[in-house]
């Protein structure tokens, strides 16, 4: 079946190939490759409107050097990295547990599948606003509930402290997105051959042994995908943070994505070069992170 396309065959087919692939390639080049290259180029320049003209001034590595001394950038990197480590782990553990519950058809499993997936259908901005109300110190659902059961001391100003806002943001994003991971893992579980499970059971394996020794190893590639997607999602998290805290208070929930937006369009700094440098640097960090996760986890898959 592995048929090679000869040079002649390719020549005769180049036009249809071009017709089908061309538009997509044009789109990809125009909206992916070009913006990336432009951002890379901008990152070595100051791009600011001066006296009505958008002026590009080459500054070499200055933007990158400045980034290393920018306390807000460092804070945002710290926040994003914490999130990118904690978030995917929380997400995959929950998603895996729930996927197994649904796979093994616990009572009301159809309802759970819908209920757990539903948050994903809600706009991130709406999620942010709703949780902003839920975490309101005075009349938010959480604190009202805590006070109602006598836990007044636990009712905190969740979004206005030094220690809790980042946890709140991580939790809200987790709540909004774990359904996606769950569905992917559920699809992976559905692909586990039934014969294999039957054979294990015949050999005397109990349910936990089946899960640990058969299902999870088979599911491992899907888990890697879920983990990588979750990691990437956290590294570029924006909309929920924006709606929930706007990066505050005092940048305690600032992510790299929100800081890029602020520096590019939110503040009156009006220089697109500096946020471009942030984007390029962060793109590199994400690529390295994804590479490391893949490399490490793929080693585990060699069973």
């Amino acid at each position, binding site marked *: 079946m592995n048929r090679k396309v000869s040079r002649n065959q390719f020549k005769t087919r180049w036009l249809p190939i071009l017709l089908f692939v061309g538009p997509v390639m044009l789109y990809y080049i125009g909206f992916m490759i070009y913006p990336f290259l432009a951002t890379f180029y901008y990152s070595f320049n100051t791009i600011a409107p001066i006296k*009505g003209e958008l002026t590009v001034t080459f500054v070499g590595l200055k933007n990158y050097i400045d980034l290393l001394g920018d306390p807000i950038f460092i804070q945002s990197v710290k926040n994003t990295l914490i999130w990118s480590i904690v978030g995917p782990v929380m997400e995959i553990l929950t998603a895996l547990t729930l996927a197994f519950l649904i796979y093994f058809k616990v009572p009301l499993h159809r309802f759970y599948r819908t209920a757990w997936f539903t948050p994903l259908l809600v706009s991130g901005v709406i999620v942010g606003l709703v949780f902003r109300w839920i975490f309101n110190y005075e009349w938010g659902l959480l604190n009202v509930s805590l006070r109602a059961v006598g836990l007044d001391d636990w009712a905190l100003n969740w979004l206005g402290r030094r220690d809790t806002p980042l946890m709140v943001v991580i939790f809200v994003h987790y709540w909004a997105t774990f359904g996606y991971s769950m569905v992917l893992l559920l699809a992976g579980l559905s692909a586990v051959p039934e014969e294999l499970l039957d054979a294990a059971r015949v050999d005397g394996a109990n349910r936990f042994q089946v899960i640990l020794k058969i299902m999870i190893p088979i599911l491992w590639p899907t888990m890697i995908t879920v983990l990588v997607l979750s990691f990437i999602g956290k590294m570029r998290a924006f909309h929920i943070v924006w709606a929930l805290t706007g990066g505050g*208070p005092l940048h305690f929930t600032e992510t790299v994505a929100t800081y890029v937006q602020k520096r590019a369009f939110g503040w009156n700094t009006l220089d697109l070069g500096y946020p471009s440098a942030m984007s390029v640097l962060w793109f590199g960090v994400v690529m390295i992170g994804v590479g490391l996760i893949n490399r490490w986890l793929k080693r585990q898959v060699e069973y």
Partner: protein
Amino acid sequence: MIKKMYSLFAVMLVIAVILSACGTPATPETVIQTVEVEVPVEVTAAPEQPQAQDGKELIVWWSHWANEPAKKAMVEKVVADYEAEHPNVDIVLTWWDKNPLKDAIRSTMTAGGEGAPDLVYFENEVEWVEAGWMVDLADALPWENFDPMAKLDGTYPDQGFPGNYKFNISKVTNMLFYNKDIFAELGIEVPANDQFTQSEFLDVVQTCSDAGYAGVADAIGNRPYPGVWPVQYALFSLVGPQEFNLFNSGKKAWDTPEAKAALEYSVSLRDAGLWPASFSTMTIDEFHVYFHTQRKACMFYIPTWYTGRGFKAEKDGGQDPNWQFGMLRYPAMDNGVANNMLWAGTESGFGILSTSKHVETSQDILAYLAQPKYGALWTAVTNSPSMIKYDASKDWPDNDTLTALNITPGQWDWYWNEYDRVYGGMELGIAPTARCGDFDAAVVSALNEGLPQGLVTVDEAVAMLDAALCK
């Protein structure tokens, strides 16, 4: 095989053409909105650019105040009047909330100005002037029609821009309200001169807090400045308007005894229970309601633009017109040099973007708006002082005009009577709010978020501010 592929491509092409034909045309041919295009609050995408029609000159105007019906009504009235007198001009007004509007202007202008409006909201962003985005209005407006304060704002001689870039329609004074019912309930007596001393004011806040009320209703959910007010009010009274302007605009280091005294006083107020529990999340609309309807705070730091939200219809979040609050002078600071002065400034105004192809007409519209009758109309409709001078006996709008704009004449007379009684005889200290971007960000972090929430100390706040002083 090749034939099949070509056929498939042809079929896809036909389907694409049919689907395109069924879609909405990209540019509507007939619909032109002449007065109002309302954009939901917190939407950042720029609206589709309207098209000129019938050879008319089209002026696009983006304005703040989406949530303030009286201001909208007033500006729309001016637009309607102008269009009636200039039938060759169509003005399309789009109403925004401030934050998304500023984002949209920055986005469109940094991208070269495609889709940018002609007339635009302008607050006091010196960077916009440095960027060459704003047209100099120095020779375009009848400045003699304005209060002299108007020309002090929207000009940046220190940065090399001595022109005038902002049309100031509103004159703002910063006030301090109190809830008479709560004061009576708690036995708090207002001094005869309506001014507590620094320590008395602290006691008032403590008394309110002990009784379960917030000292003031202000919060920072969607604004970068209410948390700064206690510091600003105290510093203004301590050092007077000229020194205050230097501190406030990032031209003077904060590591001074006066600035630290103001910061430390704000900390003592905070610790006494100045802020509402929902300080970090309550939005500007919500904290108005918190004061006038929920009545959970004793006092309220607020400029004269309170009326834009407070005097809306009750169903829209405004206050009960019969509920009358009181006004106070700022607390008299120990050794304060301006305890008898009132901090005055401006609010959002208008400017013309340099990318406009209709600069002359846009200037003409602003000059038209600068007529004394519109100064009077602004005050009568918005209950906010106007920067445009007028003779009330001659220029004040008649009741029919006000009624047509949904204004009930005389409804808020008690407010003005109280205003005149408390602030009427005070000298104004003028303080424009222009700041460079870095210092502005530091003020937001240190004074709006950090200090009021106990996230930074006074020394840390000072260090943050001084590290970002404007050059």
